[in-house]
């Protein structure tokens, strides 16, 4: 037995006796990761299990008076048209917000990716929404959208009820999301564009690929890993929209049922209605949707993402 072990080790080109440095790696390694792992267990792993556990209970206030109800929360969830409407609202919002933001950010990044006057100023302006507090952003948009006194209706000479018409409100919310995320996405694309070697374009120019042809044949394929990354992360954060709904859609707003997102509903059930069991069930649904969509994107990436 002993012999076999030694053979196995030497077969891996390991020296027979561990040096001090190698032995101490075990100790130091664990010491170094200990604070992080302890934190992750307390703050994330345990809470995640706890949330899952909660879905089998009806919760009284402050988590007290838990009553075991088996799978009833899940049965209620399946029949709850409000939840499915909220899920549909969330998907619609993401489906509009993410592609538009990525497309605009991509165009702006390509336009800015050259030596030009005012480059830093433009970049700083586009990034500005990222710096503002979401509550402030939501308030000013609510004010711009105001149907009576708002700037938008004045500028367009319209009388549109931007945030109380159920057919329009979700688009208005998406516009805020687009406006807020363009600069962030653009900065990531700019970083990706700078990694594309210049000689690719020179070689392309010799073959006649300039302007739009260069964009579609060179820029887009070489940037596709970054686009994929931005797509995946924006979809995940799009599915978690809360701030703008919470700030803009008041309880009496007739468009609320057609606009509220899944995270907003989770917040309402968990912290306003105090039913943490059902709130947890809603968040488990969100987790399942995010995992499903992300897995789907990972699968689809083989069709369009170009890795060299």
């Amino acid at each position, binding site marked *: 037995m002993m012999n076999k072990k030694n053979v196995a080790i030497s077969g891996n080109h390991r020296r027979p006796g561990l040096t001090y440095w190698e032995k101490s*790696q075990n100790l130091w*390694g664990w010491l170094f990761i200990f604070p992080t792992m302890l934190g992750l267990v307390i703050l994330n792993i345990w809470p995640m299990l706890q949330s899952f556990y909660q879905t089998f209970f009806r919760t009284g206030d402050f988590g007290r008076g838990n009553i075991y109800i088996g799978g009833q929360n899940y049965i209620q969830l399946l029949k709850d048209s409000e939840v499915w409407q909220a899920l549909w609202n969330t998907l619609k919002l993401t489906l509009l917000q993410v592609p538009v933001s990525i497309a605009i950010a991509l165009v702006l990044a390509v336009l800015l990716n050259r030596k030009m006057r005012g480059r830093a100023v433009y970049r700083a302006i*586009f990034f500005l929404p990222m*710096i503002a*507090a979401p*509550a402030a952003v939501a308030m000013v948009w609510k004010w711009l959208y105001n149907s009576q006194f708002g700037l938008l209706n004045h500028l367009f000479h319209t009388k549109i009820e931007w945030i109380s018409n159920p057919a329009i409100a979700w688009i208005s919310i998406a516009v805020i999301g687009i406006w807020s995320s363009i600069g962030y996405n653009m900065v990531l694309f700019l970083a990706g564009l700078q990694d594309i070697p210049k000689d690719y374009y020179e070689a392309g120019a010799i073959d006649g690929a300039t302007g739009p042809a260069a964009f579609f044949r060179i820029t887009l394929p070489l940037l596709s890993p970054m686009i994929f*990354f931005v797509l995946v992360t924006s979809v995940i954060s799009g599915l978690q929209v809360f701030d703008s709904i919470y700030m803009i859609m008041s309880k009496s707003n007739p468009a609320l049922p057609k606009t509220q997102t899944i995270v907003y509903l989770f917040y309402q059930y968990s912290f306003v209605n105090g039913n943490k069991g059902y709130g947890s069930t809603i968040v488990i649904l969100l987790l399942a949707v995010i995992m499903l969509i992300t897995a789907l994107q990972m699968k689809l990436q083989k069709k369009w993402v170009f890795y060299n």
Partner: protein
Amino acid sequence: MRSSKNLFTTLLIHLVLIIFSIIMIIPFAWMILTAFKTVTESTSVNPFVIFPSKWLPDAFITVWENMNFLLLYKNTLLLIFWRVVCACLTSTFAGYAFARLNFKGKNLMFALVLFQMMIPSQIFIIPQYLMVSAIKMTNTIFALVFPGLVSAFGTFLMKQAYMSLPKDLEEAARLDGCNILQTFLFVMAPLTRSTLAALAIFTALFAYKDLMWPLVINTSNKMMPLSAALATMQGQYSSNYPELMAASLIASLPMIILYLFFQKQFIQGIATSGGKL
């Protein structure tokens, strides 16, 4: 011929960029313009008032007196400070270990870190809330900082930074007789300063923007950060837009000033950290 075409292209590019700049700025401009108006002016339709007839600071004075902004700044600053310190400190140690040390269970532990990054954070909120209330720590700075004590994302980011450093440096330090802690502290850690700065900016920005957790955990007006205080005040001043806009400006100004000074670091920080998320 060629140069006139180039000039045309340049002008066209600037035109597109200027149009988008205006779209990005309008909400901020409208915030400022509204904040200096009277309520009557802000709700005047006929004629519609774009520029205030007199630039009155009244709304600023009222909200400054009604909301304890100095306290809100202090809460926000402490929230940001502790989250940045904790996340950077724990992540830099863990990142180094995951990148450069071999220890038992490393792969499993790192899988836990990655797994956590993919989970929507709302799933943690209820249990985190119950924990903080169980130890009777709601309405404290500790409660605000709590979910950000460690950072899976930061750990991942720092691991990437350490992996990109050359191996010879460590070998040299080791031959000079440094133990692992010394090698890490004196040789390796200083080389990741720029990534650490990126992580700090990223953490600070998201701590400042976080809304749901502060709303849930600190319901006392005295212990709120700016984001939650602004959200709460909206209910109280519902239709006084000059005051709402003035408060929004007062809340946003410190971060915007910081941004204007450290613009390059902000954007680079987001590009480095965001790009590797």
